């Protein structure tokens, strides 16, 4: 009896889970576990087939789901935590949950206006210290610029999402101020902490300029400050993406402090696709049926996609760093 799609799905899900929780273990241990579960699943399917029963998809899924806590406990027994539990387990879990929550909130704009404001700030408040912990842990191995961009990028993208919701659902832009202070101020502080005084002073100057110009009414307030904040956000986002992609391909970012260059060049690079998007949007949708969707909303939508991609990459890096790599000199039990 050939399994249907649900049977194939169940088997693949079980195998994917086993592969997932055995990753990073010595190859011999991991392969033994995978081979044993493979054998078990195969025997269960054959047992049902011989008895003339349908493929036990739900039974397989049930055995998989009910065993997850023991699988995780087994994994932890195999590889005792060597560092702080916060670094090894809580950190990736909380980061994933926080940004999953952020994505959920972004997707559910029906939340009340009062709630939206706090719901969107909370991930920032939660993830900023967590990312800071991660940055501190990795500070000996990764480029300063990359570390700064992880933190700045994470906070920035969250704030850009907040602005998007503010524009669409609250029809106001109070979060621009938050973006300016948190992004630039935070990045400046981080740059100073990490030892790049020039970058820190430069970013503080930008922050001071933003505050100064905002005291005027007129085009400065409506144009330059949001643009400044968003360009800074895009700079951090692009750096974040570069960091994630570089790590995915096992390449370290250069160990020179690239932050001044990032500050100077990336906003320009980020502005080009923004104007391109504006052009495309105006060309195809001169009379948009959705008047609330404006240029910056489209830009922020692009940022959301980038955010998800970047943080997927970051989660991969955290997971890999947390559970280590598989030694290559091990053999499988069947070898």
């Amino acid at each position, binding site marked *: 009896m050939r399994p249907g799609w649900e049977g194939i799905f169940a088997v693949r899900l079980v195998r994917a889970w086993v592969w997932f929780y055995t990753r990073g273990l010595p190859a011999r241990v991991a392969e033994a576990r995978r081979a044993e579960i493979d054998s078990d699943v195969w025997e269960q399917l054959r047992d049902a087939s011989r008895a003339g029963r349908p493929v036990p998809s739900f039974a397989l899924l049930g055995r998989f789901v009910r*065993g997850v806590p023991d699988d995780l406990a087994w994994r932890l027994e195999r590889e005792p935590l060597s560092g702080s539990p916060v670094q090894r387990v809580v950190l990736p879990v909380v980061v994933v949950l926080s940004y999953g929550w952020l994505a959920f909130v972004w997707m559910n704009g029906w939340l009340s206006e009062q709630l939206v404001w706090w719901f969107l700030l909370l991930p920032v408040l939660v993830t900023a210290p967590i990312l800071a912990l991660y940055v501190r842990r990795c500070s000996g191995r990764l480029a300063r610029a990359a570390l700064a961009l992880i933190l700045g990028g994470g906070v920035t993208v969250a704030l850009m999402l907040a602005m998007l919701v503010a524009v669409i659902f609250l029809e106001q832009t109070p979060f621009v101020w938050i973006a300016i202070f948190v992004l630039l101020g935070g990045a400046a502080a981080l740059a100073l902490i990490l030892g790049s005084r020039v970058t820190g002073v430069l970013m503080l100057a930008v922050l001071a300029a933003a505050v100064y110009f905002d005291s005027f009414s007129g085009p400065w307030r409506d144009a330059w400050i949001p643009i400044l904040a968003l360009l800074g956000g895009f700079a951090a986002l692009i750096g974040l993406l570069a960091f994630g992609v570089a790590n995915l391909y096992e390449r370290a970012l250069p160990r020179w402090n690239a932050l001044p260059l990032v500050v100077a060049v990336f906003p320009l690079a980020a502005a080009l696709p923004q104007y391109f998007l504006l052009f495309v949007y105006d060309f195809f949708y001169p009379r948009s049926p959705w008047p609330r969707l404006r240029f910056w909303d489209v830009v922020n939508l692009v940022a959301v996609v980038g955010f998800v991609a970047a943080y997927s990459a970051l989660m991969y890096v955290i997971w890999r760093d947390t559970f280590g790599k598989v030694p290559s000199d091990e053999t499988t039990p069947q070898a």
Partner: protein
Amino acid sequence: MRRKPGALLPLEVSICEVAIEQRRQGEPESHGFAIAKLLAERDGARRLTAHGTLYKALGRLEAAGLLQSRWEDPETAAHERRPPRRLYQITAAGIEAMARIAQGDPAPLQNDRSRAAGTGRDPAVGEPVSS
């Protein structure tokens, strides 16, 4: 479930009892799914023991020296067109531990005698196939 020092969990006791019963019937070695099925039949349960729960318990029993395992000959599995099985069987220490439980000893591993009788192999891997 919290484990008392030297004690076995109910599932571990059940696995050992099933293994002893299989030994009595002349089939001393059983693979994981067979054990899960025997446990369900024995207890009249509709659901099989979860993967993670079963293999974690088997690993603990092997580490304690109450069970031992080996991977079957890959050629046998290839001949029958199925994945190779990891076969478990009860050890003398396992039989002794079950006898002590039957006599009312709630912690048959308390003095670590059974653990000392273990093979010292890595229970997560099992005995490699001998060619």
